[in-house]
């Protein structure tokens, strides 16, 4: 109970100020039948800091840690080196323990950071504007589909086969309830993206086409023809970026005329964290800003004419519009956005480009090496830092086998697309600046042994 400062004397004195004889008097509105006497049975009592630490550390030890083994998993979450100053700065209490900046006069730190974050994100994605972050990439993708519905007043969304299958699942879940029609496809291992097929599907009912860049197999394609086809049919192009480091090496979707660009910002500053918390990136063309979900920070002046920042355009939001709001979201991923922004500031343009180049070069070397393993084929013609291997047999048990050999080999398509036989042999391998030549060699050797 070390976090509770009241003493029993305090409690007695305060009860007498209130005019209550016991704490139970303050719970008189709880119906008698619903009151609990004494602590709930079957749950342990309070524990010391040392005891709790011991328990949690024991649980932590039961996991295979990415940083301690050759590690090649990606598919929407990437392991990058995070400079020490990022975690140090986000642990400053004034950032860590601040609330939503509802009182801007004493929240300029958070607000200026969000304004800088919005600008960094907009520039990276190539969009006019960006918001102050979403829960994660998958929910940002869903919100983008809803935004396209509101803008076009149409309800048919075409989802690329290259879109992360979990993002597709989230969209399917939500579409069941909002009435959107989703036209989905599976990725095809031997095709180099499905852009032409997507263009062929667009019609007068299409609200948007959603395409991932680079896609789930790691492939990259020019989005310009797709954007043109969308706009010719008054539909929107939504681009999804799950690996923002890629945009240090390849053209931004906004630059190719995507209307809405969403992304997962986890790669910068946030870390793997077993899937969350992450940070959703959300940018769009300026003309759609009032249909954008999430928080926005804007520049203004104070009563003395000094520059300052406030949360703005809240007339779109749930606390004002209630059932007419653009979304029900009432938070953002503030601390993760801060980590993203600090990491981006440390990198700067020069650092981001260098980081991207190192990632790409490492992936190229790894692909060439792994292609030499007997029975292994590299599927991709194009990629950034992630590519797909065809193992010639089911990849899922091989991944388990390699984990037992101390190598976390990648994400099998069998895990992502259970029951899809045409994809079962696929293994998605990610290489970042944290991957060494020795790691690649260890993977190649283990793979060769497992496939033999």
């Amino acid at each position: 109970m070390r976090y509770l400062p009241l003493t029993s004397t305090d409690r007695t004195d305060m009860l007498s100020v209130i005019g209550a004889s016991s704490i139970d008097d303050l719970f008189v509105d709880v119906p008698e039948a619903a009151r609990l006497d004494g602590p709930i049975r079957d749950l342990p009592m309070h524990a010391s800091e040392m005891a709790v630490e011991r328990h949690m550390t024991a649980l932590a030890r039961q996991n295979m840690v990415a940083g301690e083994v050759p590690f090649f998993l990606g598919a929407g979450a990437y392991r990058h080196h995070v400079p020490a100053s990022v975690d140090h700065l986000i642990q400053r209490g004034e950032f860590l323990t601040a609330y939503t900046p509802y009182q801007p006069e004493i929240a300029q730190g958070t607000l200026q950071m969000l304004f800088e974050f919005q600008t960094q994100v907009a520039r990276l994605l190539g969009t006019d504007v960006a918001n102050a972050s979403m829960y994660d990439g998958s929910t940002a993708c869903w919100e983008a589909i809803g935004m396209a519905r509101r803008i076009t007043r149409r309800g048919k969304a075409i989802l690329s086969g290259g879109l992360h299958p979990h993002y597709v699942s989230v969209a399917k879940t939500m579409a069941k309830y909002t009435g959107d029609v989703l036209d989905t496809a599976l990725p095809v291992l031997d095709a180099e993206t499905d852009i032409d097929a997507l263009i062929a599907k667009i019609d007068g009912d299409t609200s948007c086409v959603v395409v991932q860049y680079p896609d789930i197999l790691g492939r990259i394609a020019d989005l310009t023809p797709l954007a043109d086809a969308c706009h010719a049919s008054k539909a929107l192009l939504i681009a999804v970026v799950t690996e923002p480091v890629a945009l240090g090496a390849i053209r931004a979707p906004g630059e190719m005329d995507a209307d809405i660009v969403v992304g997962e910002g986890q790669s910068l500053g946030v870390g793997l964290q077993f899937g969350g918390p992450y940070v959703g990136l959300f940018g769009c063309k300026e003309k759609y800003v009032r249909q954008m979900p999430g928080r926005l920070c804007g520049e203004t002046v104070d009563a003395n004419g000094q520059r300052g920042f406030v949360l703005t355009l809240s007339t779109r939001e749930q606390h004002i519009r209630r059932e007419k709001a653009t979304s029900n979201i009432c938070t953002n991923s503030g601390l993760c956005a801060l980590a993203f922004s600090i990491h981006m500031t440390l990198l700067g343009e020069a650092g981001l480009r260098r980081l991207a180049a190192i990632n790409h070069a490492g992936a190229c070397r790894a692909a060439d090496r792994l292609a030499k393993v007997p029975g292994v084929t590299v599927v991709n013609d194009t990629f950034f830092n992630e590519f797909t291997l065809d193992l010639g047999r089911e990849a899922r048990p091989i991944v388990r086998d390699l984990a037992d050999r101390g190598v976390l080999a990648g994400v099998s398509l069998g895990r992502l697309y259970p029951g899809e036989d045409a994809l079962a042999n696929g293994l998605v391998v990610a290489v970042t600046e944290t991957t060494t030549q020795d790691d690649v060699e260890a993977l190649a050797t283990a793979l060769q042994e497992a496939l033999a």
Partner: protein
Amino acid sequence: MSINASGWKPTAPVKGENGVPTFTGNKALMLEEPLIFEIGSTETTGVDFAEGDVAGSRLGDLTRKAPIGLPGLSEQETVRHYTRLSRQNYAIDLGLFPLGSCTMKHNPRLNEKMARLPGFADVHPLQPVHTVQGALGVINELAVWLITLTGMYGVAMSPKAGAHGELCGILAIKAALEKRGEGHRKVVLVPESAHGTNPATAAFAGFAVEDIPATPDGRVDTAALKARLGPDVAAVMITNPNTCGLFERDLKEISDAVHAAGGYVYCDGANFNAIVGRVRPGDLGVDAMHINLHKTFSTPHGGGGPGSGPVVLSEALAPFGPLPFTARMADGHIQLIEEETAGDDHPDTFGRMVAFHGQMGMFTRALTYILSHGADGLKQVAEDAVLNANYVLRSLEDVLDAPFAGAGPCMHEAIFSDKGFAAGFSTIDAAKALIDEGFHPMTMYFPLVVHGAMLVEPTETESRAALDQFIGALRSVAERAKAGDPSLKTAPHFAPRARLDETLAARKPVLTWKPPVAPQAEAAE
């Protein structure tokens, strides 16, 4: 204000608070800080990389050629920039943060240390399940606590925030109704005092929202609610304790009536911290309730997020909850139930609502906090939160209008109004004056059912001394507002900024930084 080449701003001395100018605009330890776009350059980087050739070859025709426009800073400049920014923030580490309904309590640093253990922070969500048994163990252990503390049947861990949890609960209700062949139930009843997210959530899931009025003592009008029940009603969304800080005495009676009419009860559990360990919502007939882990079990707000909103479910709704979830098998290992493993055992799940498993970092913090308190400590948490709120209510009701003070004890938060302030003075003036006293203001103008509402939530981690200082400050501010002290209209006077023009920000939105236009270019246009 012009910006010179090196990023210094301003370029001429400016007046300080009491008329003393400084060249930099700084005030000793309070340092003004330009934007990174004004001080960084695209050549600067604070990160060193390995030397070596990095020529790429598999990018197709998509190599980026145009500049991105991202400024970089050296490590020291970065540390200074963010440290200086941090000093423009109020935070719970600096003092009492009485935002009602937001629940700002102390963030124990052990939570942070545990969340950063590599075994939790450096594991990938798609690693083979047998390599992440400890991480799944955290999720499973936390799930057991949440189910037990709420007296419910199951829990969906993946929702990413409270409002996301609401969506989860409403989707489970919709799925259950459809399974029963009652998809025609299209109405969700929402009391007036509900969070704005409640109606937004119901509307998002395709329901029609109807308001239920409140009684004069700040609770749901049970008679009006019962009268509205019928074959078209899917659910009632109710907040308990409600946003007026009061316990909904009739919740069990309401639940029974809703169930008898074929509907479900959604409880907004944002205020669960007031009753944890003393009341189980399951005993009150609740079918679904989200728990804001950051509020009840203290995970840091970080300037707005991330949150985490697990949803506990009744036996009736549990089969419809989302994927993925964890299950401990007979041999002790923990299975991750997702699309592949759900199979025939879980045919009714409404599917996935987020890419991976939810907010693992928040789960670790919440479990650490829960284990530290234990079942006995959590009960004490609720009691101290309620004690502190009633102490504030009783200590101020002679000087501030307290609309529900006669309606029984408040729970974890106390509500006041601006009734009795001098003409032209309102809640916002009291709030801004509190800033000058060194406190973050209370929640303003919420809930909507109280005119000029001031909602104060001290939480259980405040000492009596801290409460007394806050009470003294708010008392003084209230007296000045009643007397019409003009200095309140221009407060705050000692904050990093004076009152900010929010109308200008909304009318002419400036959402990203753009380089200033050079004077000669401006003239040429």
